[in-house]
């Protein structure tokens, strides 16, 4: 066996704290190693060229590169050795950067540790076996989860690109948060006026199949071949018959149902259509409020419905869709008022959240677009906005910036002046964050043209005094406390991950951060990919984002799906589990522990029961290997022998 080893300096990243020349010299002494060298940037073109030439000249049949994490460049070097005629699995990478040079300062210790790491890689590569990919067919249908603006954009772009799209939305209508907004910054154009046409496009597109009021139950399979179970939640209205006439809503005697669409600004009916532009424009019963469900009698809607669409007996329905890729666009959630006891924790009706104020401003909202405060339905003359209500607050578990609040506060303050010309708005802020195109000019306009008073500081307490709400805070620029007697207070509550985000991530086998936001494959270079192949991200499920950024990601995710589906066949990763049927005792523990349902029982002709790995489903995680009591199931490229060879390499030296 002829092993060649290439030690990378990575500029000063590695060479700064590791004596790379010494590592190369020590490596040359290892049995099997016939060539070892160090190089400034092994990943560069000349660096790769050197590997290829060494393979030819030195007749190498195995290659080790000691450099960065395999997550960075393993693929680069596998292609390099393949081009030089070796099997791509006759290659190993020793991570001497993330694991060594970046974390230790002592050069001597680092150098010794790097030598050990190389020894392990050499031992492994000498035990490596050639592996070959097989190819499989791709189902070119895509599922988009979430019908907000990001998901709609992804769905439309995929459909326009010729793909069949399954769009799943958990609420009764698509449109997401954007459908609730009044105007959009910095252009003050009507939100539903620009979103409405897109919603109609989704509804009318022959390639888009919409499941509204539905949730993902279970996801099985792998890139190119997923089977997804969808729960169509019971609406108690047969949507094939419902015409959206609204007669039921008008006659419903229950007038105190919680209005999810309007964030509880005003109550709604137990049977309702969320908003006039809803798609699908269908009615739905809320059984927690409906008298038919709570008291067992009523039936008014069933009597009034001209098409006989009401069905109190309806049950959830599970359907299965086969698809090849998934775009996740599940959006975000918002902090509730109960997080702020010093601001009344929801006890004061005239302290509301930013999204509630959107609904009050909105012509299709409960006040028909007239600004009326919730307590007494009067027009507020003094409105105070509090930015960062929860955001950038480590003590509340939200150390990050919520991204778009500074902008929507400026917009709402401008709109307040438009609606109520003799009003005065105040904004408490810590920093004004407005880095988008035309954004900073917009916040200036709020102050210069609309007279909004910006106060640099925070609010410590809000309390009632007669009909007013006293807002007490600090103006840190003045260095004093300030008090404002307000009619209405709007809190820009923190953006958090969508409810159930973690649960969804587990169904999708994708990672999420401490806050429940989904983690992209690379923060700069793979912003819409996940580490699970075939699953892509769009919009605020990855982190707080405004409309243009969400739309951009929707399109980006669609383009990733289209490029994935440009091939008819995909190559499988051969580094998967394999059963030695002679050693297998048929206990089938592996079937139970496999998180991907990739192992099934097989009865051999002899009648012997054994485990069988479904090659395309296996993700190569290795759980089965550690479960198997007799070592019969082995993960290729990470077999017991290969791993023990690594252990021996450091323990026996």
């Amino acid at each position, binding site marked *: 066996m002829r092993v060649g080893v290439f030690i990378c300096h990575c500029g000063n990243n590695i060479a700064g704290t590791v004596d790379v020349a010494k590592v190369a010299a020590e490596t040359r002494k290892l049995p099997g190693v016939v060539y070892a060298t160090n190089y400034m940037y092994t990943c560069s073109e000349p660096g790769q060229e050197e590997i290829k030439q060494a393979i030819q000249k030195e007749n190498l049949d195995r290659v080790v590169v000691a450099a960065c994490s395999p997550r960075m460049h393993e693929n680069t070097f596998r292609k390099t050795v393949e081009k030089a005629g070796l099997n791509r699995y006759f290659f190993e990478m020793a991570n001497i950067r993330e694991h060594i040079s970046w974390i230790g300062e002592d050069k001597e210790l680092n150098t010794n540790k790097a030598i050990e790491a190389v020894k392990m890689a050499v031992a492994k590569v000498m035990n490596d076996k050639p592996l070959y990919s097989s190819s499989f067919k791709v189902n070119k249908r895509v599922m988009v989860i979430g019908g907000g603006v990001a998901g709609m954009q992804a769905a439309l772009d995929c459909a326009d690109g010729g793909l069949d799209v399954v769009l799943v939305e958990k609420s009764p209508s698509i449109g997401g948060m954007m459908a609730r907004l009044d105007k959009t910054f910095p252009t003050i154009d009507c939100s539903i006026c620009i979103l409405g046409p897109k919603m109609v496009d989704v509804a009318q597109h022959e390639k888009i199949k919409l499941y509204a009021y539905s949730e993902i139950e279970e996801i099985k399979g792998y890139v190119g071949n997923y089977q997804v179970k969808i729960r169509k939640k019971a609406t108690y209205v047969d949507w094939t018959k419902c015409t959206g006439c609204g007669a039921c809503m008008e006659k419903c005697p229950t007038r105190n149902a919680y209005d999810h669409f309007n964030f509880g600004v005003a109550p709604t009916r137990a049977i309702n259509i969320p908003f006039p532009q809803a798609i699908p424009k269908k009615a739905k019963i809320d059984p927690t409020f409906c008298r038919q469900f709570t008291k067992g009698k009523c039936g008014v809607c069933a009597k009034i419905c001209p098409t006989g669409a009401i069905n109190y007996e309806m049950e959830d329905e599970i359907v299965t869709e086969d698809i090849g890729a998934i775009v996740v666009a599940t959006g975000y959630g918002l902090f509730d008022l109960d997080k702020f006891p*010093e601001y009344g924790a929801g006890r004061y009706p005239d302290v509301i959240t930013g999204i509630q104020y959107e609904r009050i401003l909105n012509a299709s909202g409960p006040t028909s677009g007239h600004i009326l405060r919730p307590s007494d339905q009067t027009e507020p003359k003094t409105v105070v906005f509090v930015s960062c209500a929860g955001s950038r607050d480590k003590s509340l578990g939200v150390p990050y910036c919520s991204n778009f609040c500074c902008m929507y506060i400026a917009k709402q303050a401008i709109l307040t002046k438009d609606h109520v010309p003799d009003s005065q708005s105040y904004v408490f802020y*810590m920093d004004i964050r407005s880095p988008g195109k035309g954004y900073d000019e917009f916040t200036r306009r709020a102050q210069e043209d609309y007279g909004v008073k910006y106060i640099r*500081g925070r609010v*410590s307490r809000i309390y009632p005094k007669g009909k007013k709400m006293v807002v007490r805070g*600090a103006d*840190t620029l003045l260095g004093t406390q300030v008090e404002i007697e307000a009619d209405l207070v709007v809190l820009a509550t923190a953006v958090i991950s969508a409810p159930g985000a973690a649960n969804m991530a587990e169904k999708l086998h994708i990672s999420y951060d401490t806050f429940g936001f989904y983690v992209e494959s690379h923060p700069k270079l793979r912003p819409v990919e996940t580490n699970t192949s075939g699953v892509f991200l769009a919009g605020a499920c990855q982190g707080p984002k405004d409309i243009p950024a969400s739309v951009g990601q929707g399109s980006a995710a669609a383009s990733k799906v289209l490029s994935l589906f440009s091939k008819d066949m995909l190559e499988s990763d051969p580094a998967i589990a394999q059963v030695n049927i002679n050693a297998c005792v048929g206990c089938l523990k592996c079937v139970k522990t496999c998180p991907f349902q990739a192992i099934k029982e097989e009865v051999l002709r002899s009648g012997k029961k054994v485990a069988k790995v479904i090659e395309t489903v296996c993700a190569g995680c290795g759980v089965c290997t550690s479960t198997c009591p007799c070592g019969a199931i082995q993960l290729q490229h990470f077999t017991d022998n290969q791993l023990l060879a690594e252990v021996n390499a450091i323990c026996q030296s």
Partner: protein
Amino acid sequence: MDTINLSEKTDWEFIEQVQKESGQNISLCYQCGNCTAGCPYTNYFDYPVSMVMRLLQAGQKDIVLNSKAIWLCATCETCTTRCPCEIDVAHIMDTLRIIARRENRVSEKDIKLFYDSFLDSVKQFGRIYEMGTLLMYNLRSGHLFADADLGPKVLTKGKIHFFPKKIKGADKVAQIFERFQKRAKRHG
């Protein structure tokens, strides 16, 4: 305020000292102003508490230790409770008072005198003898009739003792004072 030459007048040792003695990381403060917004005493402070934090970050030892603010703070803990960065601001104020006392620069003599009278009572009797504390404070501060108007009210209600009540272990308490003073001398 005069121009502060940050290259020459940043007292890095002071920053380090306050961080060490208080156990708080001063650079966590991003100057949101929440402490000032809730501080009940800020109207009387010469520097609002968020500015005390800023002056600390800038290593302005003299301004901070000579300030009235650190003595007018009553440790009501509102700042600590509301700090989004989880800084124990009230504990930093405590630490600043301790350092100021140690360096013999106390801007609010009356408050220090009141505290001293209080502690004298503890040292002497083991507990607080309210009447004695008040009289001692009045004598030392020169405010001879402070709260004299309250006297009849309190006395007729039988609430305040004319004579001190000494606990048995008063000497043990006094020993805590003495041991502490010895230790303080040892540590310089």
